[in-house]
């Protein structure tokens, strides 16, 4: 960094610590907490188990433009007394770097009322699978003056693509419209 050297002082060399898989992960909410967060006024949740038929699968894929990988749908009716407030659907998407468990609240009008993340687990990216790259960090962990905090909560610069999540929500919207009555 010749351009910067006269201007910026270099106080330290930081060695990034190597993290073993699952590299970073956090559980935000369990199932009950997510249900309560998305339907605060519901008093109970009625589990509805659905196995998609091949025809339904095809219909969902056609209407959402997203591939259906799992036939079992985990859904709940959000109930307040005898009346239904909406649908709560639990799902998982695998992105390039992460596995995300999330829930979608769908109102009786068929519109998304909210999306809540339950679990977020980040896997290894391409760079780490490269053995040569990994070798240069070997043995450096203990000599590193900086302790690794296994905590992504304060991670700055974590702009991960939410595209798979967006697709997942679209798929669940179609699933509700086609398979949940």
């Amino acid at each position, binding site marked *: *960094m010749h351009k910067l050297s006269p201007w*910026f002082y270099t*106080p330290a060399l*930081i060695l990034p610590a190597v993290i073993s898989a699952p590299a970073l992960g956090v559980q935000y909410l369990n199932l009950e907490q997510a249900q309560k967060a998305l339907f*605060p006024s519901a008093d109970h949740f009625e589990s509805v188990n659905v196995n998609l038929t091949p025809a339904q699968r095809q219909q969902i894929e056609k209407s959402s433009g997203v591939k259906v990988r799992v036939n079992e749908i985990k859904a709940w009716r959000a109930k307040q007394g005898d009346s239904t407030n909406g649908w709560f659907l639990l799902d998982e998407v695998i992105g390039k770097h992460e596995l995300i468990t999330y829930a979608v609240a769908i109102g009786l009008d068929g519109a998304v009322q909210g999306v*809540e*993340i339950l679990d977020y687990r980040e896997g290894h990216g391409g760079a780490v699978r490269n053995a040569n790259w990994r070798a240069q960090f070997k043995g450096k962990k203990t000599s590193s003056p900086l302790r690794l905090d296994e905590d992504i909560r304060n991670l700055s*610069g974590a702009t991960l693509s939410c595209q798979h999540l967006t697709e997942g929500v679209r798929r669940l919207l179609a699933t509700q419209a086609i398979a949940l009555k």
Partner: protein
Amino acid sequence: MNAATSLPVPTEEIIRARPLLGTLVEIAATGAIGRVSHAISQAFDAIAEIQALMSYQDPASELSRINQFGFTDPVPVHHHTWTVLRSAQELSATSRGLFDVTIAPTLTRLGFLPRHANFPRASRHGDWRHIVLLPDQRVQLMRQVRLDLSGIAKGYAVDVAIAILQSAGIHAGRVNAGGDLRVFGATEQTIHVRAPHAPTQTMPLVQLNEGAAATSAAYFAQRRHAQRSVTPLIHPYTRSASSSERSITVLASNCMLADALTKVVQADPVQATSVLAHYQARALIVEHDPVSGGCHVFDSLQQARAA
């Protein structure tokens, strides 16, 4: 002092995350039991509102209305959009155009932003000076420039969310919108960044208990364009994409500033030092050192002290 007097109200910490602003937005809050979750929901709702106003992708957003009709007629805008545009203009003036929200046509050409078929053709000879803020929160474009607020609105959304948590009586909180984060409360929180050459590696960079940090780096944002790897970090003067392997973290009093200043440092680290000083902000540049396998950290504050 016994426990009963020091802790009159039992508290809880809740952390939730929702997909917003094209990333995962995480909100953590500590406060009196029973009040925290509602405060977090309100903060998420505010972020969703800001997204609906200022999304470039959404053809129905207020920003899209400016891009579509702002050259023909003044467009009245919401208070949020107005605040962001006013701050953007001030940052552009202070940085002499190193921060510029009119780089959208370049981002579209490189495939980072979608094309809107019904939008008028963008002028090649326009910049931030061709955005005019009129009385009564109206916006007029003097040339057919096209605005993208993604370099500043995310930070603003974080600030608004923090303000909502604070006014709801939350004791300590943190809002992290994929790299734009702000914290408040008594305890210091360690801010980590990703290693620019290996984004699955993280390292602790700095401690904060009040204030904001924003990190800009290309590692998750690169794409191929015309047989080469490009980033969405556009230099406003040359309108070319940076291929830099450094990550830039800016610490500032609020997240909108921190977010926008990362672009200034990215464009010109040397000129940026006076802009950073003007806003009492600090930049930390992390660059991979292939020889040692570690990373060098360049600190604008150290430079200021040395001078």
